[in-house]
């Protein structure tokens, strides 16, 4: 986290269950060993809406 000092060898886990502003919804899990990121999991649970597929063949206006 910004401003926080980290001790080498200290292990930390950060889990954010609900990222509200990632164009939909998502969650993030971080595992840190000191300054070293050991694991990142990013989970988008926003249901797909397929806009890219729906737009095919439509005029921009």
């Amino acid at each position, binding site marked *: 986290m910004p401003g926080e000092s980290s001790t080498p060898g200290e292990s930390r886990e950060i889990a954010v269950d609900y990222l*509200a502003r990632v*164009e939909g919804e998502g969650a993030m899990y971080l595992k840190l060993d000191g300054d070293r990121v050991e694991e990142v999991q990013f989970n988008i649970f926003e*249901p*797909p*809406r*397929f806009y*890219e*597929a*729906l737009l095919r063949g439509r005029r921009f206006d």
Partner: protein
Amino acid sequence: MTAAPDSRPTLAVWKFASCDGCQLTLLDCEDELLTIAGAINIAYFPEATRAESPGPYDLSIVEGSVTTPHDAERILEVRAMSRTLITIGACATAGGVQSLKNWANVDDFISIVYAEPSFIDTLATSTPIADHVEVDFELRGCPISKQQLIEVIDAFLSGRKPNTPTHSVCVECKLRGTPCIMVSHGTPCMGPITQSGCGALCPAYNRGCYGCFWPSDSPNIESLRDTWHGLGIDDEQLVRALRTFNAYAPEFKEASDRYAG
């Protein structure tokens, strides 16, 4: 001194397949937000706050459509813990733009959009909340109107029916003093078959209405079709217009299926 128990009704705001725009309308009520928060206890609203109180809730506001097996289960749970359930926006009330996939093969869509199709778990359809559970009131629009949302919450708090007219956008053009853009400069407009609520926003900026507020009461789509043909708009373009924000609204769906032949 102990605090008096909170007698305000509790509010929960839920999201299904949607863009968040409708629930953000609640946060956009800047001038009225404190008054609303004074009258109602915001108990669950992840878009606004991480603090949450457990249900049941007096009022649930639901945004978004049902497009995944998980959401088809989740809406049942939401209904079970809500005394009153109101759906907001074209996604929740009509299936939204994403209901266009109801006319297509969803497996093709998955491989077009996603590099790793096996990660995607989706139903073949996008359907409105009312197809799954009983809904107490449906507020239309893509997105909804702030004034109408306040009206619906106010009506809930005072135990009356919300006053949201079902007449066409044309009525609001007249109220606003906008000369008809279809008559005066031949711009195709869906206003005659679209429900009011937006204040006739698009025609006021010389753009035809796109039908984002759901079909108006008893829309005469056949007559609109004749007028559009007169403006040189063919059935293919009309079908696209009908299949946009409220493609799965019964009147628009039935007409678009008929004209698509």
